[in-house]
């Protein structure tokens, strides 16, 4: 039986078993954007090295870090000489570069499937993420950081999120996953924020009390890849 081994590129070359340098992801697993990339790497079975960035010490604003992420946000990413940031673009890149690895349907296997995934990835980025990120910060992080919660901001964003989830409830009554019958990047992209709202806030019912959204959340959050990410988050708190 042949075992495939990931070895450093400085090791002796073996023509029969191509080596891959692990990609590098910079940032803490507890960051929603970092965990989005981690979930994708695990789905795609791509070897990676997670490099810690201590945000409490402001490492993400250091001159060295700003060279790889000029907005001073996590994650940053490197694949040999390719440097990227923005979690959703890193996910798209991973799916294209490593199309044959792991979950090969994650970004669709034909143009129409891919377009549907992009449509729901954009819906996530433009409609779901803004209110849900605010709620994640206010409800899950502010208390830990001893920052005062803003009830007006919480109410406003809860209303916005509820409206978005009405559209999702209808969609998920017609389709098993957001973009179609298969789990995709579009569903994956929702994992980080939803996880905090369901598990670390008292507003989980926004999701769990809706029949179709609740069913969908149960399915996507029980994937092995996401369970591993949650484990990584627990290990570093």
């Amino acid at each position, binding site marked *: 039986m042949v075992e495939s081994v990931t070895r450093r590129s400085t090791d002796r070359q073996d023509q029969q078993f191509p080596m891959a340098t692990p990609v590098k992801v910079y940032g803490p697993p507890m960051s929603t954007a970092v965990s989005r990339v981690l979930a994708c790497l695990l789905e795609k079975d791509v070897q990676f090295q997670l490099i810690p960035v201590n945000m409490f010490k402001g490492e993400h604003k250091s001159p060295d870090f700003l060279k790889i992420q*000029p*907005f001073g946000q996590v994650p940053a990413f490197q694949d040999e000489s*390719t440097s*990227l*940031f*923005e979690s*959703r*673009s890193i996910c*798209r*890149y991973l799916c*294209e*570069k490593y199309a044959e690895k792991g979950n090969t349907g994650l970004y669709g296997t034909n*143009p*129409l499937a*891919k*377009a*549907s995934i*992009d*449509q729901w*990835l*954009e*819906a996530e*980025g*433009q*409609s779901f993420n*803004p209110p849900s990120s605010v709620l994640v910060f206010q409800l899950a992080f502010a208390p830990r950081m001893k920052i005062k919660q803003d009830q007006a901001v919480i109410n406003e964003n809860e209303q916005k999120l509820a409206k*978005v989830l009405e*559209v999702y409830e*209808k*969609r998920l009554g017609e389709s098993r996953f957001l973009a179609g019958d298969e789990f995709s990047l579009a569903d994956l992209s929702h994992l980080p924020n939803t996880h905090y709202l369901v598990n670390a806030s008292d507003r989980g019912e926004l999701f769990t009390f809706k029949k179709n959204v609740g069913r969908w959340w149960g399915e996507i959050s029980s994937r092995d890849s996401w369970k591993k990410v949650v484990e990584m988050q627990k290990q570093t708190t």
Partner: protein
Amino acid sequence: MVVKVYGPAYATPKRVLVCLIEKEVEFETVPVDLLKGEHKDPEYLKLQPFGTVPVTQDGDYILYESRAILRYYAEKYKSQGTDLLGKTVEERGLVENWLEVEAQSYHPPIYTLTVQILFSSKLGFPRDENLIKESEEKLAKVLDIYEERLSKSKYLGGDFFSLADLSHLPFTQYLVDQMGKEYMIRSRKHVSAWWDDISSRPSWQKVLQLYAAPFKN
């Protein structure tokens, strides 16, 4: 079959129009009057359940979210018109990187400015001057990062005009024209040169000619 694009008077659909022109793809437009609330009509919501523009209809195929539409047509017609994606996975990666920057960092503050400055009176609510000031400050910080980027790279995604640059056209046009904030672009040497370059493209000039904004300057 000609692709239909809904809502051409508005900024977001104009991303799609300029892309289709760059890709030499024929299209038709269907007006949607947001001020009359046509985007909330049951018929429209069947096409676009979030009630926003644009949506495209290509025969039976319906697609929404402007940047998803951009990606679909840029790939479908990769071999004709302008290459808006790059030739390798790595080049595409950088294009996607800066398209996400536009979506996540540039768009929110400039969209808030658009709604507050250009649409508030039409939609019947008072301008929030604090929000306008905050949004301008946020946008200025993003433009500072663009200035640095564009001092090292001719276009945002690399040395070629791509979806990453194209996506900025409609709302930046509002910024320099109707919002009267051209100084934000002109005070930054490389951003200014980049803006002149991308906004003078025949495709963009054609969009401006054919589809007027829903208000006068």
